[in-house]
């Protein structure tokens, strides 16, 4: 035996292993053949670890990628160059509900993704999709059952303390009985625990009602739903199956969400309850229903502060429903939800769904429910509850897409900045309360001259001047010699003024927040915003929406927002504009002094 005597040398082991190429190599078996060979930097999608997906606009594969993403991801924002989508449990479960598999989703993402899809995202996709279909709500005779093929899962649910109040006991092997009134609450609770429920229990058909859409309206115009409206109705209705019949349709302001509601009613052909934001909106819906459907006036009722007329189609306001004599008492008008055998409930401006109505909605799970909105943004963060209780988002289309197609007007947004007069600066500087500061800045007297200039510039257009503060609005109305509409304006007078505006007899209307929602003034093509509800993004979008109905001719609308620089007004304006910039709108910013130079003289 021989031993080797030498100084110890550290071993360095460098075995040869296959060298894997740069990041960007796709796992070929997941990439559809048509996308193999495409240069990596041409792929428009970037998937982030947090589930957000960036989609670059303008490249050769943008539209293809967009259509692919829309099937399983939610569009979050769409500013100019990069749109953001999000993968969420709900969006994945919705995809599962349409029959998509995890592999198809992974394939889609991998095909268009510039970089490898993060591992945790692939895991989450598989995990979430594997949960879909494991729990189902079905109806057997008159009993509502929660069923699963996974005995461990169903046993866990049966023994869960948090869920016990919704369960009435075992209804057979792997089946739990659910109280019908708890259907919505149970779904909500299970979603929170990460378990989606496929609701196959069906809907109460409701009392039948013969209703069709007219091909010629009562006012003599030919009528048909636009293509995207048809798509939205079809997405909601889902051929009448249990997989559809509940959900939210998100369409830009001015895109005709009311028509989607009418389309849904024509499919459902049953007694319908429609809940809207104001009495004016009630009347607008009523007019549209009578104009565009085969229903007669005796079939459409109003349920408002002034009138409590329940008919096969009843239009109620959120306000009247959530009224009660005192905070400790019940809501007496909730009885309207049970007044008839409603087969369909439509929530207009569903983003405004008040908290008490959430509770009632949880009890209405057996009825078809349609939510309509342009801006599903809630300051209380309860968007998830809207999706759970009303239904998932069924249809969504970016504002700019409809604008490009001409379905809504092309809007130019301009922010005009002006300075606070010297005499107001000290008062502003000394004010402590931000609301007071904002009011001082928003009511900047210098705005008056700018409004006057803009109105003169648009003397041939239909102009809305919109604001928050009644004193300011009153002053503007007096200066412009235009009518003023506020919350105090009686409904009859409001409607007369709106009618005069529609007919062109009034060219300018000065309006308060009452005009934020659901006011149909298709002729309005100029909006001048002098103040708003602090940083509300939703309000900004809704106000722009007042002028987005398509116009004859150039189909152009003008949105001006007057902002006092270096004040809270400017700070809030930046926040307000976020939603619209995320929809792809650009704001041109002008100094008030530049107004003449950039926009031309009003004398011209």
């Amino acid at each position: 035996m021989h031993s080797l005597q030498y100084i110890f040398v550290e071993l360095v082991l460098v075995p040869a292993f296959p060298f894997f190429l740069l990041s960007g190599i796709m796992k070929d078996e997941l990439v559809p053949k048509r996308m193999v060979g495409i240069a990596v930097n041409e792929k428009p999608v970037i998937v982030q670890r947090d589930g957000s997906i960036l989609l670059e606009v303008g490249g050769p594969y943008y539209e293809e990628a967009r259509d692919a993403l829309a099937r399983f991801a939610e569009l979050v924002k769409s500013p100019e160059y990069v749109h953001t989508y999000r993968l969420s449990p709900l969006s994945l479960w919705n995809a599962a509900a349409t029959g998509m598999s995890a592999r198809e989703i992974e394939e889609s993402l991998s095909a268009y993704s510039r970089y490898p899809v993060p591992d945790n995202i692939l895991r989450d996709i598989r995990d979430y999709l594997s949960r879909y279909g494991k729990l189902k709500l079905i109806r057997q005779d008159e009993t509502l059952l929660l069923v699963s093929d996974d005995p461990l899962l169903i046993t866990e649910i049966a023994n869960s303390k948090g869920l016990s109040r919704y369960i009435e006991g075992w209804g057979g092997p792997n089946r739990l009985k659910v109280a019908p009134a708890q259907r919505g609450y149970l779904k909500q609770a299970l979603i929170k625990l990460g378990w989606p429920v496929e609701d196959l229990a069906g809907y109460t058909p409701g009392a039948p009602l013969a209703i069709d859409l007219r091909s010629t309206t009562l006012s003599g115009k030919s009528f048909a739903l636009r293509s995207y409206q048809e798509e939205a109705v079809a997405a909601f209705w889902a051929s009448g199956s249990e997989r559809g019949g509940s959900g939210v349709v998100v369409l830009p302001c001015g895109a005709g969400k009311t028509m989607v509601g009418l389309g849904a009613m024509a499919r459902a052909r049953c007694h319908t309850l429609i809940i809207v934001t104001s009495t004016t909106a009630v009347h607008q819906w009523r007019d549209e229903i009578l104009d565009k459907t085969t229903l007669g006036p005796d079939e459409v009722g109003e349920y408002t502060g002034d009138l409590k007329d329940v008919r096969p189609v009843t239009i109620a306001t959120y306000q009247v429903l959530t009224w009660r004599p005192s905070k400790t008492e019940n809501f007496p008008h909730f009885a309207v939800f049970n007044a008839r055998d409603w087969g369909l409930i439509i929530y207009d401006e569903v983003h405004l769904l008040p908290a008490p109505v959430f509770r009632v909605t949880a009890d209405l799970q057996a009825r078809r429910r349609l939510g309509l909105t342009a801006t599903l943004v809630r300051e209380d963060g309860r968007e998830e509850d809207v999706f759970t209780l009303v239904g998932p988002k069924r249809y969504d289309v970016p504002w700019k897409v409809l604008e490009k197609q001409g379905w809504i007007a092309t809007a130019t947004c301009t922010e005009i900045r002006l300075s606070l007069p010297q005499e107001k600066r000290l008062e502003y500087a000394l004010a402590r309360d931000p609301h007071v500061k904002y009011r001082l800045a928003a009511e900047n007297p210098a705005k008056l001259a700018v409004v006057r200039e803009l109105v003169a510039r648009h003397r041939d257009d239909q102009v809305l001047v919109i604001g928050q503060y009644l004193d300011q609005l009153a002053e503007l109305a007096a200066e412009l010699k235009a009518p003023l509409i506020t919350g105090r304006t009686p409904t009859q007078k409001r409607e007369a003024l709106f009618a005069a505006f529609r007919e062109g007899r009034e060219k300018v209307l000065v309006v308060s927040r009452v005009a934020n929602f659901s006011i149909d003034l298709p002729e309005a093509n100029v909006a001048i915003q002098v103040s708003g509800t602090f940083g509300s993004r939703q309000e900004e979008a809704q106000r722009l929406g007042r002028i987005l109905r398509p116009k004859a001719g150039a189909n152009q609308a003008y949105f001006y927002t007057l902002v006092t620089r270096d004040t809270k007004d400017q700070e809030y304006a930046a926040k307000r504009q976020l939603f619209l910039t995320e929809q792809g709108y650009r704001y041109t910013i002008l100094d008030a002094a530049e107004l003449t130079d950039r926009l031309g003289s009003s004398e011209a």
Partner: protein
Amino acid sequence: MKYQEFLAHIGDSQTLSYLGRLHGLDLSPRQSPARMREQLCARLADPTYLESYIRELPEVEQMGLMVTAFGRKDLFPTTESVHNRLNELCKKTGRTGGRIMASLVSRGLVFTSRDSSYRSLYVLPDEVFWVLLRLLAQRHAVPNQPPLPQEPAFGFDILSVLNELFLFLGWLRREPVRLTQAGYIYRREQQRLLSYFNPPEEPDAEQEKPYPPRLRFLVSFCDTYELIAPFADSAGNTYLGTTPEADKWMQKSLNRQAKEVFEYLYDHLQYLHGPLPWMLLLPASVISDKGWLNLTTLIPSLTEWAVDPWYLPEREVPQAIKWLTSFGLVEKAYINGQQLIRLTVGGKRFRSGLLPAIKQDTKFLVQPNYEVLVPQELKPKIRWNLEAYTDLVKNDRVVVLKISEQSVYRAFKRGFHPDEFLTFLEKHVRTPLPENVVYSLRDWCDRYGAVYLEQPLLLACRTPELASEIAADPRFKPYLRGEFTPRHLRVDPDRYMEFLAALEAAGYRPRPGIARDKAAAEAKGRLRDAEKEE
């Protein structure tokens, strides 16, 4: 070291011939030793032959090989420790550790050496080590099967590590972090920082490890390259901030930085944690067909072979795995109560020691909502400049920064010039800057410095008339900057000596220098006035 190097030390033909016969070679002693070594090396370096030879060995000798190879987590074991361990393990067989190892040495599978302290060690040629590694991996391999993930995770990416480094340096530059008395970053601050890591880390619960793996690596790297340093404020509190070296380092190319970080990480893996993480990567890397290494069965084997009483695989292996998963070098899975690991795609690359080239980008995107989308491949110099004016929103494959009035003002306060930022943005954006962003930036730049503190130098005159007289005199115009009060004139502080001389030459008798005690200066004046009146 390979067999070739070990055998080079055997010059004796008889020994070589004996070894040759043991391994089925008829090496004629008439050949030169070099020729004999060559043939012997060719036989022993053949992995197929070596593996089948080792498999045929008695079990105790195979155990001897395993103890030698894996009995310690770092250096090769001493002969004594191996003998002692084998004695304990082979009590029932009646064979002693010494005899077992002697047999292995005589077969040419194990050699002896000495370390720097002249202790006798057992060492293995690379070829033997690799065969043992394969055998170890085979014994503890688990085939890939449902429900285990089919494809290995992508895992380690040098760009992500670099990105976290930029995040760390940017964080410290934005606002230096306070250090504890022991010199560590406070937990709360760590939590804030680590929440931006991707995936996030949590501060380590163990006292002796103040930082979780990735943060620890970053601190170590930055410390080594002097990119960060502690400093104390006037109250004696210690902070950690960036150094001018960080600015210089950020001027390097991405590939250069990637190389430095990669090499440091390679060494960090070996030296900071010992070769245990490395050792775990090895068997994992020889398992084929996307199979897994079973840690649940491996750890008891490692424990059995441990010769060092301070080496506790049941504690140290999980720590090493934590490190490896933290960097995405391996992925974990569980099946039937067994813990498995597998090299990720990135882990395999890392093991190979090869670094992919990175194509640098020079453009980023600015959105109308003031967010800046930054690809990880952005040139570091550009990124460093951008980070000075922005806040971090999200750290991901595309990093999201945000421009705000506060972030821009913070940069101004640190000495960055307002005008530079807009020019910089316009140069590096991929698409035109949104108009509202341009407008806001111009606005903020204009507002910067609208108010500032000044320390004026004043000429105090006893009377307003005297002040007016001096202000009107053309001889003094070059030195004056205007009136401050009717009795005080503002003086150019850089030329006050000249001004005093000019006043003196003109017949005025100014008090020399700058009066520090205003009251005393005025009191003396008053006294003279009083005397005059009297």
